[in-house]
């Protein structure tokens, strides 16, 4: 994908190399939104910046808003560099991150930086330490909050653009406080790095409305037993944006816990363009039964990369031989970063043009 979208074209590109996820959205006229961040190899640029470089976008001037949906490594890797490269972009992160217990959690684990391994905590602390640019707008993402509002008169296609966050709900913010508190109370003995685990109960799902076109980006939000949380709370809300959704980033790598039957039936249009980013570690997502379920919901299902195991990591011959001797087998991210790009010209009788490709 070497050419940028046209000025009046909407673009949604979802990057998903098998571990990690990043979404870039072109509203109009070279104005972009970035949701989350991931990287390929060590020492490389965040994927969003690499893509922008490829299509000639200047992130310092053309990124309107960055949304960090949650602090897990696979969604935040490279985010500090991304935020630093986009000094004029607004920044939105979960309301849960502004609460006392998360600050305590962050503070505690920020004292254990004695490792070559960066974590989501490291990225987020770096972002916070550098967030004092007065020109940058900062938003707390939560249920039914509008974080960007551009009137149609400002955009060449004359359609207004609104970005809303759909979650976390107030109940989930409280739940996540309890979770962070329990993570700190377990802190004793020798230091450790922060390790993400448990439900994504503070994840920020987003709704982008451009004219009558509606796009929902599901992040890692899941459906839980409590209707005050997760997709139940989104679906049941009376204050969220309305309209039929034509493009949907499937939540939580297509897992069953990310699925909400009524959302599919009553909010997403029939044969919605649905994009899944696989998670190719451990048991892997989506599983075969997840793919079957998704294919029952829509004929327009796209995956950013194959839902298969991570490729084997290769070392030089001597190292490989030694590793084989001791039964050490390692895997790695794929070399290329799979992507799905959807482009659409609003106000025309057309459909989304969708391509799968790889960023090298």
């Amino acid at each position: 994908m070497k050419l940028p979208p046209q000025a009046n074209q909407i673009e949604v590109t979802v990057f998903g190399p098998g571990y990690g996820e990043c979404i870039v959205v072109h509203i109009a006229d070279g104005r972009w939104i970035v949701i989350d961040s991931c990287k390929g190899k060590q020492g490389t640029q965040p994927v969003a910046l690499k893509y922008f470089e490829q299509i000639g976008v200047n992130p310092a001037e053309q990124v309107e808003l960055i949304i960090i949906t949650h602090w897990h490594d696979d969604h935040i890797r490279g985010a500090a560099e991304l935020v630093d490269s986009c000094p004029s972009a607004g920044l939105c992160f979960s309301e849960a991150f502004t609460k006392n217990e998360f600050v305590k959690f962050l503070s505690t684990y920020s004292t254990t930086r004695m490792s070559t391994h960066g974590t989501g905590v490291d990225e987020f602390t770096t972002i916070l330490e550098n967030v004092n640019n007065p020109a940058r707008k900062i938003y707390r993402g939560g249920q039914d909050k509008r974080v960007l509002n551009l009137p149609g008169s400002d955009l060449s296609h004359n359609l207004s653009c609104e970005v809303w966050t759909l979650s976390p709900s107030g109940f989930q913010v409280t739940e996540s406080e309890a979770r962070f508190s329990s993570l700190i109370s377990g802190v004793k003995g020798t230091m450790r790095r922060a390790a993400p685990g448990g439900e994504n109960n503070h994840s920020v799902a987003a709704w982008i409305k451009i004219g009558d076109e509606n796009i929902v980006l599901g992040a890692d939000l899941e459906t839980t037993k409590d209707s005050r949380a997760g997709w139940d709370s989104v679906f049941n809300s009376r204050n969220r944006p309305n309209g039929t959704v034509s493009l949907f980033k499937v939540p939580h790598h297509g897992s069953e816990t990310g699925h909400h039957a009524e959302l599919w039936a009553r909010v997403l249009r029939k044969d919605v363009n649905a994009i899944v980013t696989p998670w190719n570690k451990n048991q892997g997502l989506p599983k075969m039964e997840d793919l079957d379920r998704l294919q029952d919901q829509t004929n327009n299902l796209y995956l950013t990369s194959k839902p298969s195991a991570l490729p084997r990591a290769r070392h030089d011959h001597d190292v490989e031989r030694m590793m084989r001797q001791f039964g050490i087998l390692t895997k790695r991210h794929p070399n290329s970063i799979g992507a799905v790009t959807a482009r659409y010209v609003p106000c025309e009788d057309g459909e989304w043009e969708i391509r799968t490709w790889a960023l090298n």
Partner: protein
Amino acid sequence: MAATAEIQRNPSETTDADEFSLFQHFLAVDLNSDSDSAEPSSADQYRGWEELVHRKILGVDEQNQAIYRPSPRSSSEVRKEPSSTGKLVEWEGVVESVMSDKFDARLTAIKGSDVDFDEFTSFEVARVPQDDHDLIHPGALFRLVVGYQALGGTRQQYSRLTFRRLPAWNQNAIDEAQLKFKQIVNNIEWSDEVTSSG
């Protein structure tokens, strides 16, 4: 033809209790020379010279019918810890999740390998020394080393997985960090707008 040899005997190689260094010059023996200035001037001198050479240089003790050789190193000098020779590869690992009998980890090569990517793998808990089992938690750091070692003259492959016993959590450092981040968050001027129905 003149031949001159110098022998310096390493004091650590001698069994003599006295530490002394021998620096012997063989007398120059010029086979073509008519000069007899290099030769011992008397039979006694010759015998003394010969005995010195036998005893101190060749290690021959005719009186005691013994031949002295440098003794093997004493046990205090024998290398007990293996030395690594040749290829050594080291990774730093962090535990990502723990099951009953194994754990998943992410590895980064820090020595001996040029790869530029993170690696993912699983290890059996049984591979970890028993004393380190209490350290196996999500977020725990460890080192994995695979290489060759020389032990008692034999070259063997070895692998070692050792958990890092990092310092205990420092409450002062945590309090300081909390103060800092609370201040940062409290000083943010939020741009949230009042929500309305869509």
